[in-house]
């Protein structure tokens, strides 16, 4: 419980300071070009890693079949430009349906 509160407050404060610093310090400091390029890519690296590990692993081990299958269905739909809500519901429904059939 305490950990959750600390995480929320630390993220809130840090994020707000990043935003405010950018707005207030604009024109007074410039970021080096490589940092301007790397920051958005760092976002991609972290989110891709989170998504893939969450799709394929559970507590450090393989996550079975139903979950990756559901994620795969969602990704295919997203690839075909389906709305976000459709992607999420289809992924959940696929995994839930497979589990109903006894697939781990």
């Amino acid at each position, binding site marked *: *419980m305490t*950990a*959750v509160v600390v*995480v929320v407050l*630390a*993220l809130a404060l*840090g*994020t*707000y300071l*990043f*935003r*405010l*610093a*950018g*707005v*207030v*310090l*604009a*024109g007074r400091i410039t*970021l080096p*070009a490589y940092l*301007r*390029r*790397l*920051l*958005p*890519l*760092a*976002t991609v*690296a*972290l*989110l*891709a*890693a*989170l*998504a*893939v*590990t*969450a*799709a394929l*692993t559970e507590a450090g*081990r393989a*996550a079975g079949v139903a*979950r*990756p299958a*559901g*994620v795969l269905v*969602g*990704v295919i*739909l997203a*690839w075909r430009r389906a*709305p*976000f*809500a459709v*992607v*999420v519901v289809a*992924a*959940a429904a696929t*995994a839930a349906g497979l*589990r109903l059939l006894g697939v781990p």
Partner: protein
Amino acid sequence: MRAIWRTIDPGLWRDAAAIGVAIFAIGVSFGAIAAAARLPGWAVVAMSVLVFAGGAQFLAVGLLAAGSPAGAILGGLLLNARHLPFGFAVAEVVGPRWPARLVGSHLLVDESVAFAMAQSQPERRRRAYWLTGAVLFGAWNAGTGLGVALGAAVADPAAFGLDAAFPAGLLALLLPSLRDPAARRVAVVGAGVALLATPVLPAGVPVLLALSGLAAAGLRRRGDPDRREAPA
């Protein structure tokens, strides 16, 4: 401030409403997933109000659920560091007055920045920024609240496939950025490193190790003639 709302044309309202609906749907899934991870509902809602950054919130909830609060803070702040250069970009839009700066900074998210910068005139930019920021803030928090209520009502998240909804939603959000070849290389290498490290390293660390994927970005091409040197 009231003059801003009166002078917004229907096109801006329509675009802002479309983004708002999309963000509402993402907020619902965020709230449901966080509640399904057994985080207290009030903390999830507080996170959406106070942090107001979707990617970092998904990352933080994922790492908290895995038992790594330190990773959640570190990863979330790394994600949100990109808001610093975004702040440079919208500083003129927000203006020099401190009340506007203090409130406007909190409304700074990927979509409000992109939406504002897409407008051609300064006045339209200002309206677009405040309108999108306010609509997104309302939609994100309303969505989170509804999602928390739905997620808390689910006794067994796995039976409803919520564990599959989380990565699928994240990947759907990520897909547009992957059109850039450098981003694609970074994503593949980063995710691969994290996946290989997951069985052997404590929770949270593998995801942070994905930053090593940045080495695949190909920064040797930094000297490209098309690099932008204008102050952002």
